[in-house]
């Protein structure tokens, strides 16, 4: 492991000021489940580590009118245990259950998962389906960005050098909303997704009033399958062959790579079935 300077900050302001000072030459330490591993493997070139674990402003899950605010330091275990989220935003709870192992879920944070910007980040697909908004703060003040504008590529985001993700803002679920998250891994736990899909549906009078589909691990970032969404929106009858044909369109929207977990060809082919499997859990597909 290389040597580095370690700073433990008490509040957001201190963290932002230090960030400004070090610019690119710093990394934030939240849960550490990713950073510590990379430090040990000498993959971190930055010389300053800012430990933000003690910043109160980044903690807690709160109900704010029809929104839920999740602090970026909230761990996956906290999400899984949260009554607010179980009631008003169950998709993020389901996805959090699939993150790593109990030890990783106890330490790993949602903010870390987002800012790492891995296309395989398990918490990200549901946030796409929720149209999540990110509250960011820097020396220039705060701003709110839509999730769709946040990711720029694997490991890349729009975050400025002195900017911190403070919280994630979600809209509370309504009664006629349903969702499903499925993650395909080489094994059933402690695994990085080969591919994942997440669907949120709003139904009224038996038809799909609205639908959001997101896919993980099949493109440089998590993506929304808007083409498929558009075809499905308004659908009333759910015939198997037709739905599979629609799901096939997802191929046009993804651009996966080949790695040790799976080939590009497999990811392309299996994505349509992952979307189909999720739809099958949400709709009464016949024939």
């Amino acid at each position: 492991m290389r040597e580095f300077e370690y700073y433990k900050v008490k509040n957001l302001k201190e963290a932002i000021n230090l960030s400004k000072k070090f610019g690119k030459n710093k990394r934030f330490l939240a849960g550490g489940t990713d950073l510590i591993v990379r430090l040990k493997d000498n993959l971190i070139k930055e010389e300053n580590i800012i430990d933000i674990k003690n910043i109160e402003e980044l903690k807690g899950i709160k109900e704010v009118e029809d929104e839920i605010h999740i602090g970026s330091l909230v761990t996956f275990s906290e999400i899984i245990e949260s009554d607010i989220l179980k009631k008003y935003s169950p998709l993020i709870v389901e996805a959090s259950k699939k993150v790593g192992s109990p030890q990783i879920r106890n330490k790993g944070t949602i903010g870390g998962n987002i800012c790492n910007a891995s296309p395989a980040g398990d918490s990200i697909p549901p946030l796409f389906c929720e149209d999540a908004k990110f509250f960011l703060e820097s020396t220039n003040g705060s701003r709110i960005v839509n999730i769709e504008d946040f990711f720029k590529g694997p490991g890349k985001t729009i975050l400025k050098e002195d900017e911190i993700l403070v919280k994630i803002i979600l809209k509370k679920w309504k009664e006629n909303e349903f969702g499903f998250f499925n993650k395909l891994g080489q094994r059933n736990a402690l695994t990085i997704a080969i591919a994942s899909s997440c669907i949120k549906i709003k139904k009224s009078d038996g038809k799909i009033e609205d639908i959001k589909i997101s896919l993980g691990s099949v493109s440089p970032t998590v993506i929304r399958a808007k083409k498929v969404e558009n075809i499905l929106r308004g659908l009333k009858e759910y015939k198997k062959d037709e739905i599979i044909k629609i799901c096939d369109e997802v191929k046009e929207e993804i651009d996966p790579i080949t790695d040790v977990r799976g080939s590009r060809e497999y990811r392309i082919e299996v994505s349509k079935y992952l979307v189909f499997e999720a739809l099958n859990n949400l709709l009464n597909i016949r024939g």
Partner: protein
Amino acid sequence: MIKKIDISKALKLNGVVAVLTYNDIPGLNGFGIAIQDQPVLCYDKVRYIGDAVALVACETKELLDKAIDLIEVEYEPLPVVEDPLKALEKDSPKVHENGNIHLHTKIDKGDIEKGFKEADLIIENEYRTGRQEHAYLETESGFAFYDEDEDLLTIFCGGQYPFRDQIQIARVLAIDPRKIRIIDEPMGGGFGGKDEITTQIHLALLAYHTKRLVKMEIERDESIVFSWKKHPMILRYKTGVKKDGTLTSNEIYIYADTGAYASLGGPIVNLAVEHSCGPYRVPNTHIEGFCIYTNNGVSGAFRGFGVNQVTFAMESQMDEIAEKLNMDPVLLRRKNILKKGDETGIGSKIETSIGLKKILDEIEKHPLYKDREKNKIDSSEYKKYGVGIAISYQGTGLGVGLPDYGACWIEMRRDGGFNVYSGSVEIGQQMKTTLKLIALEALKISDEDKVFIITGDTSITPDCGTTTASGATYRSRRAIEIASKKMIDILKKEVNEIFNIPTDEIKIEDGIFKNLNDEKITTYEDLAEILYDKRRLPKTEGHFNFPTSKTKIPGAFGLPHYIFSFSGAIALVEVNILTGKTNLIKAVNLIDGGRVINKIGFEGQSEGGIVMGMGYALMEDVIIKNGEFLVKNFSTYLIPTSMDSPYQIETIPIESFEELGPYGSKGIGETTMVPIAPAITNAIFNATGKRIKQTPATPERVFFALHKLPEK
């Protein structure tokens, strides 16, 4: 190819104690159990990415990285030999000067042409198996020091055979092996991966040169790269069978990728050849085994020792035959299983106990198999359930012509207890518990504190052969039995002398000597005091040669084996046909290990065997491309977690009494794992109608067996 090694800069770094290269090796620069073809430190060529070029000792661990960075090695790249089949071609680059074939075994039995003429059905397939990592609990590590006054080099390091390590080190250091003491306990796991040298020689070299205490610890991502793996094999099978299910012939070609160095690759290929026809009567065979050098890491001993691969192939063949003949898979196997006196696929007679019929009886009546069609009804549209079976056998012990023996020393202590010294080592398989149970029974006492088991130290224990080949318990148990019997005889004689009672009228019950009227004469404790006063506390020795076959197989060193353990497995799988992801839901292991002595140990071996076999079947594979490891640690090399393990595991002991074994028992360490993979892939076929011919059956492989890749 190494052009130049420059260590001068590293030596100048403050805190570097020693940097050693091949120039610093006093004796033979080579090691290997069978042949010493692997350099301790490379001098002319690096044959795989885990080869060692220099050894560095530093005052602190942190300095090591810096020192290693300062060593300059100039290489000239050589072509990489990657594909074992291409390595066989005449114009292939050579990994070793003598060519890429380390061993080629060829066996003919009967008349293969006649056999195929008699057949009504011929099944031909090619199978491929993955490169499995042992994934033992602890990586290879140890420490060593040299005592100049005593001229004694002591090495603490987990290993499976301390006496062979001693000799391998002595050859390299060119010193008397008696000047080396190896203590190789405790260990968390071996599975064959620590049968060969790991860090022992490097530790010895550094301690000998520096005269200081040296510690060496291999990190996991280094361990996976440098250490031995289960041989990936390409297996070509052509099997002939009559309409009634009688096997007539088997033509088999086995191509094993042994990587850069031989280690035990030769014996492993021979074991694969020996077991390639499964536990069946096949009158006409032509079997060829090739052990092939490549630049793909190194392969070596691993639980199953070549039998996993051929069992996967043969049991897949049997499953396909049953399907094509529309015959019950158990019935097909019943028609062909070996009976006492039958010849195996390589033409050697089996004269020891065989539990196969009982295993098939148990499979047939087990609800998981009997009601397998009912289980399928529970399948949902996109999740298919299926049941598969497989049976297998495994020769225990090392085979003909190889030194294979057990030894034990027992001494009575002043407190009436016993010290029992055995050369077998605890490698996580409950060896010490088992030895203690055997010694307690043999020495006729029940107080656990009265028997102290001492193992794994070349200075104080006898040489007991290697703890491998499912035979360690067997070897040491027999030796303990013999030494214990001698001890009991001596004790009775002493009682006879002191109390004047004829020895045949003395019996022992739980450490108490009694006469024929059940009256107490004396106890171990009291007798020990008397004997101590006379300075003649007894010591005994037990020696035992592992039974081997009287006949040899020409051209196949070590074959055949004499005693075999048998096993069978039933697997219930769930296949997600949308994604190809397969889960093992229930598993039953039926094991003929003779009489069971340590029940918890027996079940532990079985359950571990199932999960390890399941990892082999479904996910485990060290992927190497162009000599580079794409999988280096447990984040990418995946082994089953508790969330993957079947929620129901059942172990059924099939106790065929083996007259030669201690208390009628046989070794089971390997056979518990062997039938699992084919049982799982046969279950996938039962669920989906698609046969998986390459392990591991990853989601991707199963998916593309179910869904055709669209044409471009």
